[in-house]
């Protein structure tokens, strides 16, 4: 569009070219949106795509139409998430920055293999794997967001919208979902904020999604580097903590483990435990099933990659001891060392693997079968569930980075991870691509919420960056 900027625009007020028959149903039916580098935007459905052409079916067009792939900025899709049955998830990080999640299938000197629901088994070239991390969790009861459905806004007018697999707020107000939390749950999410500090409240076990002040549950208030916990029913203050991560960054990954049975709340930020609280007024607490995110700022705030899973109520680790006054009263500037000095720091080496409870193990993976990993250690072969590991030691290699190729695309998963590959072919349900990282794989299109094109063009990247907020 920039290339063809009109010399003169109409100086006359324009009425609608179409009025009575404006096809609202068109928008309803279209779930995907393609954006072009000239700012043109069209909703519809992806029928097929190659390195040269994309076939797009829009209700506004008389028939499916072809578009040049080299003009496409990105395609936003509505992912379909499978039912989670696994108790852990492995994240493989590649040397080009890609991250892919799945079930760890094998680790050898040649490859790290993941079993995925969206592309079957993917064998990653060991030379291009920079890390393997395992997260333990019960089966997800909710993962998202993938839209506004099921969520309710409390502000009038609403301040939250859904865009690029995230909720984004444009003012003070809340968004809530009823009936999503079990009695004991792990709530994970990622948040990012503009301005100099975060101003976010999260309420768990709410009984009323229509208000930002429900009469049950626990409210965690994140503001600057402080976190305060209070009982929503009694409004009594339970405790507070400090986080350097919140003070020094503009985004964070948060996990809240909450039990309505024993009235315990544990907070993790960027996978580091921050604090564990017990509610002394437990008898007065009533547990709803609702989850709230409430922005306290007129500046934009983003919440994404929300996951809710069952929690067994057991904590594998506890925060480092802190000064009593800080624990009790949350004095700023004290007790902020828990993130600066992770428990594992200083004792890891290249063959040492971390366990979920903070223990570590030296050895070499010999086999993985049915979720059980065998490790050859100096003490002999040790078998343990994969879910009990946090990291997997890889044989040291001289890392390589996959080649960039014309026609590479970047596909984003709903959880914020992404993978780059050369687009080979596609049909209505799958996309086949290749990369030095993993050879050739066929992906279910339903796994992706966005696919970016022309990813090595600085102009295209600038346009994408401008849309981040």
């Amino acid at each position: 569009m920039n290339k063809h900027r009109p010399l003169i625009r109409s100086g006359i007020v324009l009425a609608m070219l179409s009025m009575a028959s404006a096809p609202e149903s068109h928008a309803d039916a279209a779930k995907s949106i393609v954006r072009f580098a000239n700012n043109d935007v069209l909703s519809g459905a992806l029928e097929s795509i190659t390195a040269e052409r994309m076939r797009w079916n829009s209700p506004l067009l008389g028939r499916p139409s072809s578009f040049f792939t080299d003009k496409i900025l990105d395609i936003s899709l509505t992912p379909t998430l499978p039912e989670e049955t696994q108790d852990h998830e492995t994240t493989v990080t590649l040397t080009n920055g890609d991250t892919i999640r799945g079930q760890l299938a094998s680790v050898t000197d040649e490859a790290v293999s993941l079993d995925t629901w969206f592309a079957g088994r993917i064998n990653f070239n060991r030379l291009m794997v920079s890390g393997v991390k395992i997260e333990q969790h019960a089966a997800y009861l909710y993962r998202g967001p993938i839209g506004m459905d099921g969520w309710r806004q409390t502000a009038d007018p609403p301040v939250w919208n859904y865009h690029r697999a995230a909720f984004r707020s444009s003012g003070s107000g809340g968004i809530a979902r009823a009936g999503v939390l079990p009695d004991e749950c792990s709530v994970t999410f990622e948040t990012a904020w503009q301005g100099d500090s975060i101003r976010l409240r999260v309420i768990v076990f709410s009984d009323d999604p229509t208000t930002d002040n429900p009469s049950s549950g626990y409210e965690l208030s994140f503001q600057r580097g402080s976190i305060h916990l209070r009982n929503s029913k009694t409004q009594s203050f339970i405790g507070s903590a400090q986080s350097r991560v919140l003070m020094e960054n503009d985004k964070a990954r948060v996990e809240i483990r909450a039990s309505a049975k024993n009235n315990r709340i544990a907070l993790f930020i960027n996978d580091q435990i921050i604090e564990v609280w017990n509610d002394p007024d437990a008898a007065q607490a009533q547990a709803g099933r609702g989850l709230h995110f409430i922005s306290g700022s007129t500046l934009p705030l983003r919440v994404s990659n929300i996951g809710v899973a069952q929690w067994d109520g057991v904590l594998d680790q506890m925060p480092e001891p802190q000064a009593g006054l800080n624990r009790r009263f949350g004095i700023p500037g004290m007790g902020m060392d828990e993130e600066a000095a992770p428990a594992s720091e200083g004792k890891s080496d290249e063959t040492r693997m971390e366990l979920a409870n903070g223990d570590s193990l030296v050895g070499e993976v010999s086999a993985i079968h049915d979720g059980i990993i065998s490790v050859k250690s100096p003490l002999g072969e040790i078998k343990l569930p994969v879910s009990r590991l946090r990291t997997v030691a890889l044989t040291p290699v001289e890392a390589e980075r996959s080649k960039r190729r014309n026609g590479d695309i970047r596909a984003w998963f709903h959880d914020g991870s992404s993978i780059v590959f050369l687009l080979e072919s596609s049909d209505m349900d799958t996309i086949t691509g290749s990369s030095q990282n993993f050879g050739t794989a066929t992906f279910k299109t339903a796994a992706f919420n966005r696919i970016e094109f022309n990813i090595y063009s600085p102009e295209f990247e600038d346009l994408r960056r401008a849309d981040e907020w």
Partner: protein
Amino acid sequence: MRTSNTLRGLAALVAISLPWPASADDLTLTGGGQRLSGTVISISGDGDVKLDSELSPEPLSLQAGAVEKIAFSAKPSTEEPVTTLIELINGDLLPAAIESLDEGRLSVVTPDAGRLEIPRQAVKSMQFGIQRRKLIYEGPRSLEEWTISDEDTKNWLYENQSFVSKGPSSASKMLPLSRQFIIRFQLKWQSGTIPNFLVSFADPLDTKGEPSNRYYLQFGGAGLEIKREASKGKRYNTIAILNRPSSQYPDNRLQVEIRVNRDNARLQLFINGEPEGEFADPIPDIPKGSGIMLTFHTVNGGGQEIRNIEILEFDDTRRHRAEDRGDPRSDSLISREDDRWSGSLIGIRNTAQGALFCFKTNFQEEPIEIPEADVSTVFLAEHATAKPDQAAHPFVLRLLGDGALRVSSCQFTGDSASADHPLLGQLTFRRGGITAMERITPAPKP
């Protein structure tokens, strides 16, 4: 007049391959936030649009009802702009230079459609000495270009080139307003709700709540009012009032144009393109401000919007169009000095010094001759000619120079466009002279 053709069907609107033009047409699509750009090849009477896009190897076919608006990449002619605007009996406006007029025909030369012979009975009026209006502001283009308080920010949305108010909200903008200016905008409100808009202009944007010299338009369920706020004396003074309930405006939308002449303290009001009259501002100390302020008392969660805001310089040479033309059975001529004659315009002929008007008044034996340079407006006598069926011509072609012609369809071929006009017949335009095409009657169901 050119031979009139029968309406062309969809089959006649076959896409014709075009060379890529120097600029692109912008199409706003239905469904929220969708748009395409390129070169419009054709628009059928059914509303199907064929678009040549750099994004696609083949022309894109957009179904009827898919397009809300087309803004063409108009390119002005290199020739001198014409200074005459001809109004036809169906309300269409054609910018043209007069060659001659006799009992039966008006001969004109248009900058973008060449020479035309128009039946005299098809002409309603002619306005002379019109100058091109300089655009001061066109928008809205974003919330950022307006001043909005933090408190109000949450109630404004910018969508599809319009400001949408979701609750009580205001926004203001300071502009380089001239002494004479035109403000145009379109208001829209949710079906079943009562609108409550306030748009102030010539506003100094002084401290909120303090009396100041400014004008404002207020539109609510009971009607529309233009008011003058004064910093001294009686604070609020009605200048114009239209007791037309909001429910009487089709599609819950209202097109407003106000022409403000601060030199003679007069305002002209046009609603949905029709003149509503000229009104005097009786308060001394004419507003000198250059600000515009939007104050929408929208109920929370409601939806009121404003779009297509245009501010133009106003030369006041068209002031007589809004006047009562007098006896419609005779011709009327108004000079630039505001002299008025009724009688018969015998003819217009070209001379070395320009067009000369030969007018026989009802009170003189001999016709008088008046040079075009002295003529402001001519109204021709009305005849019993049947007006064209507007439903058969659902589109309006907007032309450079404030022209607007209703057509049944339009074909675009290279640098030209052709359309069938109910009074002028088959017309061929220079493509660059068309600024927009819009549907003014509902599209057929897709």
